């Protein structure tokens, strides 16, 4: 399911994504209600085919873990598939499959989410099973032991086998001093090895409750049709007192961190600068789009096309986050170009946007691109549900998405200048990361941010293209 990964990429930009509709019109027409026990329900109708996506999102993620138990949120996500008294022995996924559906789950710093995509006729069975495992999980010691091995293999495969991924962990650790985003969602290996059945149940009992969850259903359904089903299956689960979701505040970065990693398996040098910035900021999103969102944006045009100093360059902003977030610029030097020169060229582009801002033409084009691309969200079953899940677990509202267009219409070039200042005149230093091949210098794709764990393994490489 390539769709999934891509949806996440789009979601990074998404928040800004204005839509095709006229200002004031809603994009998704999402409907929402809350059950007496505090479960928030969001319905996103899409009647193209008789299928639905059913998702439950818990406001509990890697950044909410007990210190020393890194990886427990993700481990619990895996263990949630083991069973309950009524759906025992790993039958959950088997039942979903028998009904012609697909299921999986994923964990990030701010949430843990479970989903099933099924023919509409089987939605109620999904609700019944998901509600059941919110409270009735059972775990045998041997299941926990073998699943612990699975998450360790997962870490080895996704992180330890890839120098770029290990490097990204270090960048996050340097950027989020005194904040849990410094700890990888998958966990540190030495702590993962010590995670126990009791650790999993401690977190499960504390955080898995209707008043800490959001139910999202998109597809061939309306709120009116869903409400009685939600009441029937999720309604009987009692609300409970929740721990306060308090996060330590990140400490100032008063010295400029410069991280260098040399590894024989890194194919080419990369320079990346990452700033700690405010979340959910439309202006910053426009800065990222104008500086580095496409192959006609400033960094690519100047550094790759005109000056021929880089083979790749871009910028990104992760708008959706419960706490502070990241803004990154990366570039890979062209053969024969030094990292110092490339870094200076990036510095020049930053100085330029700070001094002169952006043009109205650039801003309008960026708004137009985002507006147009939002229509594509509607051409997907799961995309809107993923977006709303991330928005709501990051502490934003449904209107935050539905009103994107209005906000964007009002955004001026002065607002974008202000946003550039927020990023680049930040009192906290950015983290400069440099990846180097151990022997000869040659060019790598930028590391990704905020990885979320997933219960499922990666699928094999596609066959169409010959590796």
């Amino acid at each position, binding site marked *: *399911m*390539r769709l*999934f*990964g891509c949806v996440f*990429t789009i979601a990074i930009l998404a928040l800004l994504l204005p839509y*095709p509709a006229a200002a004031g019109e809603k994009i998704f027409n999402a409907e929402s209600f809350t059950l007496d026990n505090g479960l928030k329900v969001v319905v996103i109708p899409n009647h*193209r085919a008789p*299928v639905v996506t059913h998702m439950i999102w818990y406001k509990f993620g890697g950044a909410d873990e007990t210190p020393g138990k890194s990886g427990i949120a993700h481990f619990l996500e895996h263990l949630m598939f083991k069973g309950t008294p009524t759906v025992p022995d790993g039958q959950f*996924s088997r039942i979903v499959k*028998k009904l*012609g*559906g*697909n299921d999986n789950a*994923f964990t990030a710093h701010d949430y843990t989410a479970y989903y099933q995509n099924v*023919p509409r006729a089987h939605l109620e069975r999904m609700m019944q099973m998901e509600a059941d495992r919110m409270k009735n999980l059972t775990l045998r010691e041997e299941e926990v032991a*073998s699943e*612990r*091995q699975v998450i360790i*293999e*997962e870490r*080895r495969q*996704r992180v330890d086998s890839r120098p770029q991924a290990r490097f990204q962990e270090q960048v996050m650790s340097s950027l989020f001093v005194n904040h849990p985003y410094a700890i990888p969602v998958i966990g540190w290996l030495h702590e993962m090895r010590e995670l126990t059945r009791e650790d999993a149940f401690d977190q499960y009992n504390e955080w898995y409750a209707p008043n800490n969850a959001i139910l999202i259903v998109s597809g061939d359904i309306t709120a009116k049709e869903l409400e009685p089903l939600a009441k029937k299956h999720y309604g009987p689960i009692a609300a409970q007192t929740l721990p306060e979701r308090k996060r330590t505040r990140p400490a100032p970065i008063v010295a400029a961190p410069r991280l260098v990693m040399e*590894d024989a*398996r*890194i*194919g080419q040098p990369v320079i990346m600068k990452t700033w700690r910035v405010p979340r959910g900021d439309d202006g910053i999103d426009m800065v990222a789009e104008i500086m580095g969102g*496409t*192959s*006609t944006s400033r960094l690519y045009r100047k550094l*790759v096309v005109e000056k*021929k100093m880089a*083979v*790749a360059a*871009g910028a990104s902003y992760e708008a959706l986050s419960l706490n502070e977030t990241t803004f990154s610029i990366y570039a890979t030097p062209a*053969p024969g170009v030094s990292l110092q020169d490339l870094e200076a060229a990036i510095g020049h582009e930053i100085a330029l946007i700070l001094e002169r801002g952006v043009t109205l033409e650039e801003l309008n*084009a960026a708004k137009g*691109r985002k507006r*147009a691309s939002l*229509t*594509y969200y509607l*051409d*997907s*079953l799961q995309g809107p549900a993923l977006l709303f899940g991330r928005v709501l677990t990051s502490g934003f509202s449904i209107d935050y998405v539905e009103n994107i267009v209005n906000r964007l219409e009002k955004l001026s070039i002065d607002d974008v200048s202000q946003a550039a200042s927020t990023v680049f005149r930040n009192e906290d230093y950015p983290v400069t990361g440099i990846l180097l*091949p*151990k022997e000869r210098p040659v*060019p*790598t*794709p930028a590391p*990704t941010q905020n*990885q979320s764990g*997933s219960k*499922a*393994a*990666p*699928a*094999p*490489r596609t066959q*169409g293209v*010959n*590796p």
Partner: protein
Amino acid sequence: MIRFALALCVTLTLFAAPAGAQTAEVVPAGKTTGKILDVKAFKDSSGIEVWLVEDHSIPVISVNFSFEGGLAGDPENKPGVARLVSILLDEGAGNIRSQDFQARLSDNAIEMTFTAGRDAFYGQMRTLTQNRDMAFDLLSLALSQPRFDPDAIERMKNANVAQIQHDMGDPSWLVARSFNGMLFSGHAYSQPGAGHLASMTSITRQDLVDFTKAQFGRDVLKIAIAGDITEAEVKRLVEKTFAPLPLQADVAEGSFIQPKYAGKTILYPLDTPQTQISIGGAGIPRADKDWHAAVVMNYILGSGNFDARLMREIREKRGLTYGIYSSLQSMKQSALITAAFATSNEKAEEALSVFREEWKRMAEGGATDAEIADAKAYLTGSLLLELTSTGDIAATLNGLQRDGLDPDYINRRNQELMNVTTADVKRVAARLLKADDLTFVLVGKPQGIKPDILLDRPPGMKEPARK
């Protein structure tokens, strides 16, 4: 930038790819009975086959097309020509230079992607209805008058070299490269699709021009379209878009190859915590009368579903891997059954021993009635889930066209699966699953495994990998 965005997308896919996406079958599964899609099929005046599914609910149109040909079109000793063409077609065409072409695409949210595959050169386009004519015009220019400006060629060669350098440090790429290089030894399929560092130096502009002239013939073109467009509009646009192309392609005929190194274990030593394993043996062609039985059998054996036999035994029970998949690969000039997974170096021997046992168990005993019923329920029930976007529909239809199936096959396919009997599965399992004839390709430092062949570089590459 575009290239980079794609690379990011792939990375994220690995992070979050859900299971169950990988039955190798091109066609997704479906509703048990009844009409799945209303496919209109017709030919344009030059004989191009067009399939269309109209859906006017969202103002989006997706187009997927293919020119039969593929890797064999790369000149001897110059692998990577098709790849370079695929990333250069949108770098300027006709009077429109690279940056202008890119701006027209991104500012109008027109997505245009080309992919050089083993057996075909693929194109994919998605546009909003309002930009429809502009999108088809740009597509026509890209295919018939690509500029191949020297600076664009250099930029894309650099980007591709960067990708190759990155790949050569990536264990999952190394295992796929070693697998293809060895099993298809002596055949065009053994060539690295992206080329190598030497070929990036030797490929000339003329090679690119020759490739497009030889490959993009209307007689080998198949087109599938889904979304907000009528039959009359499709006829007009297809006629206009592809008319500038030659009537006939000049594509080399390849010959069928049986996989080489049957029964051998091949090791490419690499200092990583895990061993990547790719396994293959002779498979079954798509046109074989037992194809559907093989699809059912493969689903039970190793679809990636948590309940598939390989997943249950190797991951769920023993925690030896994050995921294992088997798949059927039917190509024009070969057919394989494959499996792939990663495991810790210390456990490689144990994991392979369990793997062999499961392969033999299925070969000797086939599957149970209950397993077969469950597999059919999933494969038929989930079809609609795979057809929820215009892009999914167009891609599926183009796959069916390429497989030589008729437009109504999609409505018949579930019945074909339902007709599979327990005896059919047993027969096809005995025929396909020959544990002693499998080729095992390993990358890592597996303990307790004695390879028959030791590789000192990735086959087909001119340069040693980074270790």
